[in-house]
Structures are given as structure tokens and as C-alpha cells.
């Protein structure tokens, strides 16, 4: 087996005062210690570093990719788009930051759009009034629990209710932090309140 020079730094020389030479392992060394199965399980080596060879490789790749895209089924495309949405939601929920564009209705609209459905058709599929659906999408009202449960069922549990609830929860937390009037407008309904703070 010829040693591929690109992934391996043959010898890294330190200053003489350090009196040591670190030898990054060559592919031959790796092969002596591990079987090809073990290497493939745990290592990926870089492709050609030479710009011309790399350009040639990527050009060939694009041809293959073009053919694959032309032959990709509609179902496969749909699955990919829904997985993209699911992973974006998962990551958004995990992130500390809040993005005001990522409200419940935005993700719901994305779900409907990726399915290539009209709002009215989708409302019919989950037995919800189209006006109510439209108001949720446009942030004029919050979704009810029943809609969230129906979203889980409609998506065959690929977008579980808990995921939708978490989007709503993140949205509500942001609103509460930035709009004091949400709480204050209920002030007149509270007849009694504690007269001390726990941490002062």
C-alpha cells in the first residue's frame, strides 16, 4: 500500500530544546495495527489536496449528483423536506436564543407548505375551522391543545405534540419577558397577594 502523503504529517519537528520528534502515523502504520473494517469504522481520510485533482473530483461528483436528483422520488424529496423542518425545530428548541420569526404559526405554515397543501385543505384534514387555522398561522390566536394533538396524529407522530408544546412554551416565555402588560392586565382580577418577596 502506497502511503498517501496528504492525510499524514510524516514528521513534525519540535525545537531542539524540546528534544522530541512526533511522528503522525502513516497509513501503513495504521494498517499494521488495525484491520480495514476497524479503520473504516473509525477513520475518514481526506481526498486529494491538489487543486486540479480536487476540481476534477468535484466535477465528477456533480455529474453523479445531478443524475441522482433527477431520479429522486417525490416521496423521498418530501421526507427530506420534513426531516429538515424537524431538525430545525429540534435545534431551535435546544438553543438558548429566541427568534421572533420562529413562532408556532411559522412552523405550522412550514409543515403545511412542505406537504404542498393549501390552508383550507389542511384545516379540513385535521377537522379545524379554516379561519381558526389562519388565525393561528398569522399569530392572531394561540393553538388549542386539540390542534396540537391532531398535528401529532396527522404527522404520524413524526412531529410529536410535545415538540409543538415546546415551541409554544418558548414563544410564551419570550412574550412574558418582553411584554409586562400580558400579566398586568390581569391585576384587577387578583383580590389578594403575598406581601413579601422570597429573596430580599
Amino acid at each position, binding site marked *: 500500500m502506497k502511503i498517501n502523503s496528504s492525510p499524514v504529517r510524516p514528521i513534525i519537528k519540535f525545537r531542539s530544546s524540546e528534544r522530541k520528534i512526533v511522528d503522525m502515523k502513516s497509513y501503513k502504520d495504521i494498517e499494521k*495495527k488495525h484491520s480495514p473494517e476497524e*479503520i*473504516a*469504522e473509525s477513520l*475518514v*481520510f481526506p481526498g486529494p489536496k491538489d487543486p486540479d485533482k480536487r476540481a476534477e473530483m468535484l466535477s465528477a461528483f456533480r455529474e453523479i*449528483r445531478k443524475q441522482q436528483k433527477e431520479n429522486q422520488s417525490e416521496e423521498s424529496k418530501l421526507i427530506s423536506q420534513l426531516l*429538515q423542518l424537524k431538525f430545525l425545530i429540534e435545534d431551535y428548541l435546544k438553543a438558548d436564543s429566541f427568534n421572533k420569526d420562529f413562532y408556532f404559526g411559522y412552523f405550522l405554515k412550514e409543515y403545511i407548505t412542505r406537504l404542498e397543501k393549501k390552508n383550507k385543505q389542511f384545516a379540513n384534514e385535521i377537522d379545524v375551522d379554516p379561519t381558526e387555522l389562519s388565525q393561528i398561522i398569522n399569530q392572531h390566536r394561540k393553538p388549542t391543545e386539540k390542534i396540537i394533538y391532531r398535528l401529532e396524529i396527522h404527522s404520524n407522530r413524526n412531529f410529536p405534540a410535545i415538540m409543538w408544546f415546546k415551541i409554544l412554551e418558548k414563544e410564551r416565555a419570550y412574550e412574558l419577558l418582553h411584554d409586562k402588560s400580558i400579566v398586568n392586565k390581569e391585576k384587577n382580577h387578583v383580590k389578594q397577594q403575598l406581601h413579601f418577596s422570597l429573596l430580599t
Partner: protein
Amino acid sequence: MELVTLNVNIKETSTGSLLEAVIEPMTPADFKVIKKSREKFDKFDWSQYRQKEVYKLRRRDNDIILGLMCLIDHTDDATDAIEIELLEVSSENIGQRKQLDLIGGCLIAFACRESFKRGHRGCVFLVPKTSLLNHYPARYGFEYIPLKTHNRPGGFMILYEPGARKLIKVYLDENQQ
């Protein structure tokens, strides 16, 4: 796009029990750590990849790095894929005497997830060594596409949507482990 961490499970080979781990972007401090612990990552010179998109896998309860992966995001419409440029599992976790399993699989599955997330429809590729042509397909389901270029025989290992989904299910779905 904000980079976030991903929780995964790796397996302790001695007990078979699952351990919580995290995949997250490398920091400049991590590269210094890797440079100092060359006995654990002795196959590649990772300092050359400082400016690139590099992820590490570590156990959730400590900072010891167990695996590294460099990705290239080919955003142009024609390529439209994630390339795994480099991947290395720490020395003590390669081969029959490895202490922890699933590290490489979790990293490759993470690349698949990123491919979906970034709109590449799960397309992930890598350039294989000739002697490993049969083993990436066997281990991770890659499809080998042979190519004859002017310079040498070669080719790619490619995962498309079905293969990428399968890896995500096997390595990233908690319910499957």
C-alpha cells in the same frame, strides 16, 4: 445558522451500557488540547483544520474528546452535499480493545442530520482509501460510485436520503438504542 450541540449515546464495551455524549463545534482551546494529546489523536494533524468546520464528540460528564470530524458544506446547487473531509476516533477507542463504541457512527450520523438540516436532502460523501472500498458500505451503508479520472482510478462513497435516514435512526434515535 446557529450551531448547537447534539446529545447522543455511546456504548461502554465492558458493560454494554449506554453513556451520554455530546457532539459540538471545536473551540480554539480544544485544538490546543488535541495538540497536547497527540497519543490519542495520532493519525492526522488537526491543527491544519482550525479554520474549518470541525466537531468533537465528548462524554457529557467530562471534557475528554473522543472523536473529531471535519465537514465541508458544499452549498452550490450542483454539489449540494456535505463532505466528510476527515474523521478520527481516539486511539483507545479503535479496534478490538476499544473502550467505547459507536463514536464514529454517531459522528457520521451527525453529518447526515446536518445534511438534511441544511437542505442537502441527506446527501453526504467522502473520498475513500482504495483498501477501504468494501468497508464503508458494509459498516455505514455508503454507496460506492467508481470514477475514472485522468489522474487515477477513484470514486466516492455517497449516502443519499434513505441511507442517511437509516444512520440517523441507528445512531441518533434514542428509542433505537
